[in-house]
């Protein structure tokens, strides 16, 4: 009973407000703007600054809090994704299920499709483009735009910043286009 309850996924009206509270909480703790992608910059500054001015700053003073935060996110991912994992296939809408089935996805268990995320798929050209190419574009684009779904999508929008609105519209439009136009070529058949 309790076991079943702990493993059940949370509805949007629990998830969304908690995300908002995390953003408010970071400000209250130490005036930190909620955002994840800046941690990628701090990782570069800490481990491989090279001769690049963009990575030459006091990453401990500016970014150590952010690195502590994302180490927490990794741990939270283990707690939520392994210890409290949803035991059933995800309940996306029938329309979404049909659309993804047309793409070539048949296994709806887990957090990501087994058919797409494995070392074997990574060793194929399609898998390499999807996993390494996708990851690279995420890192490049978020640094260029100065934020991602959290920094612009939550913090910036909640602070009514026009640059964040522009970024959010841009990444949603590009995300939809990529899902419709590029993803069909990357799913292994």
């Amino acid at each position, binding site marked *: 009973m309790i076991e079943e309850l702990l493993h059940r*996924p*949370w509805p*949007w009206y629990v998830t*969304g407000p*908690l*995300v908002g509270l*995390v953003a*408010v909480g970071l*400000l209250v*703790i*130490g*005036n*930190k703007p909620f955002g*994840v992608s800046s941690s990628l*910059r701090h*990782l*570069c500054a800490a481990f491989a600054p090279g001769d690049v001015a963009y*990575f030459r700053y006091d990453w401990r003073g500016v970014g150590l*809090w952010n690195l*502590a935060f994302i180490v*927490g*996110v*990794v*741990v*939270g991912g*283990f*707690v*939520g994704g*392994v210890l*409290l*994992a949803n035991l059933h296939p995800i309940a996306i*809408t029938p*329309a*979404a299920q049909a659309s*993804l089935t047309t793409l070539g996805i048949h296994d709806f268990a887990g*957090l*990501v*499709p*087994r058919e797409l*995320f494995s070392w074997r*798929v990574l060793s194929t050209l399609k898998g390499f483009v999807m*996993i390494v190419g996708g*990851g*690279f*574009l*995420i890192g*490049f*684009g*978020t640094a*260029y*735009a100065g934020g991602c*779904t959290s920094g612009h999508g939550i913090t910036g929008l909640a602070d009514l910043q026009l640059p*964040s609105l*522009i*970024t959010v519209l841009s*990444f949603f439009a*590009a*995300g*939809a286009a990529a*899902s419709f136009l590029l993803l069909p070529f990357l799913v292994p058949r």
Partner: protein
Amino acid sequence: MRVAPAAPAAPAATSPPRLLGAYFVTGVLFGIVLTKGELVSWFRIEEALRFKGPYLYLVFASALAVAAPGFALLDRRRARAFTGEAISLPPKVLGRGVRYIAGGAIFGVGWGILGVCPGPLFALVGAGVGGGVMVVACLAAVAGTWTYGYLRPRLPH
């Protein structure tokens, strides 16, 4: 109703980082919210990007419904953080806006084909999906950010 000023604000970047444990714990909570709320789910992201379900949009709307009034309240009360700093979000400079359109679009393409954004990327490393293959995507993201830093002087902003 102004909150009485506490200790004088510490210089932001030069003081030794404090309350690291609090940021870590907040990160753990966020990681749990991301996974239990299925925001790390490739299926949920592609459902939203293909306009086949409202889940992600409802999460965003309800997150903003909490964060926006929360920020406004902290701002109006000129609240101070536990560290004593005055709470304020630095405004983002619009400039010509190229970086927001181009950077957003590049990120969006990566988001669309990988079905994962940066927060979930880290959470999925913790969840160990695909036998740990997300670590590769994470390293690729770091490489992408590094490449941006390297090319930055030559890119339009």
